[in-house]
């Protein structure tokens, strides 16, 4: 599903950015912009579809856990009962073979549900352990497992020991059987896939919106959000007693790792734990930043309270297009530069780009004038009027090949050989509907490594999901065939030990037949001898 060209994310993401390129090719035209909004909606639908499928797997796992737990409980009780019967039977001197066989069968069924280890007691009872030493059946008493809702995350089912008021999740200790497989599937396939997909969704939203904000739409305004901003979800644990309010936002998309976090309060300090790595940090707050997520405590909670913060897990389902008016796509750059027609030298000001919108729109024109004494006697450069940051040093004899310069949030390149008095201006890009510079920047987002500490583009991150799931699938396949081969061997051994070989029995039958005939012959001979004796001694 993830890799297919019909249902995968790759082609849809590519089509979206192709539509951005088409807007860059014809920035003043409305139809291309309309198509871009349409492709954005297709992208949102695809994210939603994939997220829904993964959530469905999640729900299926929950169901499996619940079912398996009730089956395990029934089997455990059964084994406990059998243990009691077997111990009683042994005490009266009988070897209860039928009961032993039945118990073996039940243990086999249990092993199909969860990995178990068994230890036989001296009195004949079989003790069953699961996980890393958790006892399930000791003698004639069975513990019960319970499938309960994770207090921090109501949509998640965990497995624990029944009978305690706050059960702990023993899921990470259980392996093997259907239960173990379901847990492993959730932990190593569904959860990471959903987190990475969410990471891509947040990445696209954030970077695209950020670049939109640096551009100018057809109405001459700075661009607004193209996608709806995605906030991390924050949920208080079910047993929280306080009325704390905690909010979270994405500070830096490139730092996100896809993990979710738990923040807990002990009365004085807050501890933030990364739920994937268990790394934690403690502080008094009320503001924290971890892995690109900014967390802030609005109202302090009660001691002992905890909250689950999920920056990306639900993001793919929340991804949607905010913009509906094609005129609001910001294809142009907010400023443009000009060289004065009266310039006599060959100086140039090029590659003007905007890194922030403070100071936009410009209050007035910014003018740079070349002055051989701009920075003092004999030190050439450009005097700057209209914005702080000048004068800018520029020496035509060494810098004519090009130097970068910044003024406020603008950066540009100065080159060539200007003469005294040559000037350049930077001004608001009024009526610049033919400008496609911001559209080119929006299109460039596709290939930039925006995620995972600046190492992965959206396509790279998606390929990682597909690769991970594929590797898991491959591992599962090869594990299945290995286990299958082992099962065959075990069966062969068992059959070899206890199975009947008909030819062997036929041969034995012949042997016993012959022995019987031989014995019968001995009796016949004995009878004859006795008859002779009787005849000999009778008158």
């Amino acid at each position: 599903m993830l890799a297919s060209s019909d249902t995968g994310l790759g082609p849809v993401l590519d089509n979206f950015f192709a539509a951005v390129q088409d807007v860059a090719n014809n920035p003043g035209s409305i139809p291309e912009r309309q198509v871009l909004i349409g492709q954005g909606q297709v992208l949102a639908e695809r994210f939603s579809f994939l997220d829904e499928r993964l959530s469905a797997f999640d729900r299926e796992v929950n169901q499996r856990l619940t079912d398996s737990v009730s089956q395990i409980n029934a089997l455990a009780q059964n084994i406990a009962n059998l243990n009691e019967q077997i111990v009683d039977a042994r005490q009266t001197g009988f070897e209860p073979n039928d009961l032993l066989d039945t118990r073996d069968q039940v243990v086999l069924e249990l092993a199909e549900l969860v990995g178990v280890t068994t230890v036989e007691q001296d009195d004949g009872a079989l003790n069953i352990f699961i996980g890393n030493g958790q006892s399930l059946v000791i003698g004639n008493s069975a513990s019960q497992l319970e499938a309960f809702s994770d207090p921090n995350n109501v949509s998640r089912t965990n497995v624990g020991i029944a009978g305690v008021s706050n059960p702990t999740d023993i899921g990470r200790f259980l392996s093997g059987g259907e239960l173990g497989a379901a847990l492993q599937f959730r932990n190593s396939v569904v959860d990471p896939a959903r987190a990475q997909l969410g990471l891509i969704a947040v990445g696209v939203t954030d970077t695209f919106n950020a670049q939109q904000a640096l551009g100018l739409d057809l109405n001459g305004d700075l661009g607004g959000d193209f996608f709806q901003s995605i906030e991390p979800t924050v949920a208080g644990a079910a047993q929280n007693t306080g009325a704390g309010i905690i909010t979270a936002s994405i500070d830096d998309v490139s730092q996100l790792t896809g993990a979710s976090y738990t923040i807990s309060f002990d009365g004085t300090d807050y501890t933030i734990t990364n739920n994937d790595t268990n790394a934690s940090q403690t502080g008094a707050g009320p503001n924290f930043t971890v892995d690109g997520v900014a967390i802030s405590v609005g109202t302090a909670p009660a001691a002992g309270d905890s909250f689950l913060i999920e920056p990306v897990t639900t993001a793919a389902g929340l991804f949607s297009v905010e913009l509906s008016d094609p005129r609001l796509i910001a294809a142009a750059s907010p400023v443009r530069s000009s060289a004065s027609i009266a310039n006599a030298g060959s100086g140039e000001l090029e590659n003007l780009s905007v890194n922030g919108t403070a100071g936009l729109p410009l209050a007035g024109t910014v003018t740079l004038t070349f002055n051989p004494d701009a920075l003092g006697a004999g030190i050439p450069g450009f005097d700057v009027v209209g914005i702080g940051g000048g004068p800018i040093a520029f020496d035509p004899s060494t810098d004519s090949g090009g130097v970068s310069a910044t003024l406020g949030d603008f950066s540009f390149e100065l080159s060539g050989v200007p003469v005294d008095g040559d000037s350049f201006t930077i001004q608001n890009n009024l009526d610049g509907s033919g400008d496609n510079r911001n559209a080119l920047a929006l299109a460039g987002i596709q290939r930039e490594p925006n995620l995972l500490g600046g190492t992965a583009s959206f396509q790279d991150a998606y390929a990682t999901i597909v690769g991970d799931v594929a590797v898991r699938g491959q591992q599962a396949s090869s594990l299945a065939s290995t286990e299958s081969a082992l099962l065959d061997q075990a069966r062969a051994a068992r059959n070899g030990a206890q199975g009947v070989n008909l030819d062997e029995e036929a041969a034995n039958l012949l042997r016993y037949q012959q022995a019987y005939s031989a014995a019968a012959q001995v009796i016949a001979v004995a009878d004859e001898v006795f008859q002779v004796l009787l005849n000999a001694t009778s008158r």
Partner: protein
Amino acid sequence: MVDRISTLQIFQSGVSTILARQEELARTQQELAAGRSILSPEDDPAGAIQILDIEEDLRQVDQFQRNSNLAESQLSLEDTTLSNVVSVLQRVRELTVQANNATSGPEQRAAIAQEIDIRLDELLDLANTRDANDEFIFAGFQATSQPFTRSGDSVNYSGDDGQRFLQIAAGSQVAVRDSGSRVFLAVPAGNGSFDFSVSGNSGNVVVDSATATTGFVRDEYTINFIQALPTDPITYEVVDSGATVVASGNFQSGEAITFAGATVVLDGEPDDGDSVEIEATANQSIFETVSEIVQTLRSSTGEEANNAEVNNALASGLLNLDQAIGNVVEVQAEIGARLNRIDSQQEINSEFNLQLQTALSNVQDLDYAEAISRLNLQLVALQAAQQTFVQTQRLSLFDFIR
């Protein structure tokens, strides 16, 4: 290996062998039907990732080819328009040369002025060319407003310096438009370094040629002619804007006067007090150049002093026209270079596309020869498993006990 085989075991191992062979056969059959060796990502995780990457690259290359085609057509339009501009300017040049001829009188000059004026309007129309999307191609970023408007004898530019770029490859953008200021306004006047003018002279000195070296010192200079007494030889004095004398000497018609990196050759007979102005130039728009010629022609009266003025002005105008033509041709040369770049990028893209298709095929397509021979082998293996199973099942000692 167990040393005792039960009957059940014989049966089970026979069956599981048959099942295994059937599974392999089914897999091969699926591969043949799909024509793919990778049916799902878990068959080859590294290959699956490769396929995703290659497919993304293919889609991008496709987009780049579309972008380059669009770029080509836009640049072709600009090129054609500029060729027309050059033709018009050359016609104006012809007319100017004709008008500069000594035999042209005021009436002829007025008629020529009229035709050149019409050419000016033609240039204006060309400068306001629109493309297929109804955008003005020489307006910079303000592509929906007409960039050049004429009022009286002057033409105003309301566009800007903006240039549009299109993405033709991952790291490569090409300009598809040039601003009106680049093409029509940023034209150096005169000989590129300085221009000359003559007015208010009573003599008939004309500028024959004016050249500058790179060492030309930018300033305003005046060549003054002095003849204290009618019997004195005519001398000249060149002063700069600070009234410093930079050159002087006896005036000889047809001889070069050099100063501050400039060389001027003057013909004719100046009177005492006549002067020639030399001014370091900035830029002058093409429209201004043509318009000036029209005005010069219209100011022709036929008098000798006026003729000298007109001749000087037309000579200066011709220099300006050459600059204008040179500027437009320079832009055309840039367009030519860009078109070449687009061409070679399209070839590279096309080549890349082929490579990607090949790589994709190598990763995911089936080797039919290998698969079919594998299929045959598996068929034989399955048959053997089935036949041997049936035969060994039949054997039983009981058959031989009477």
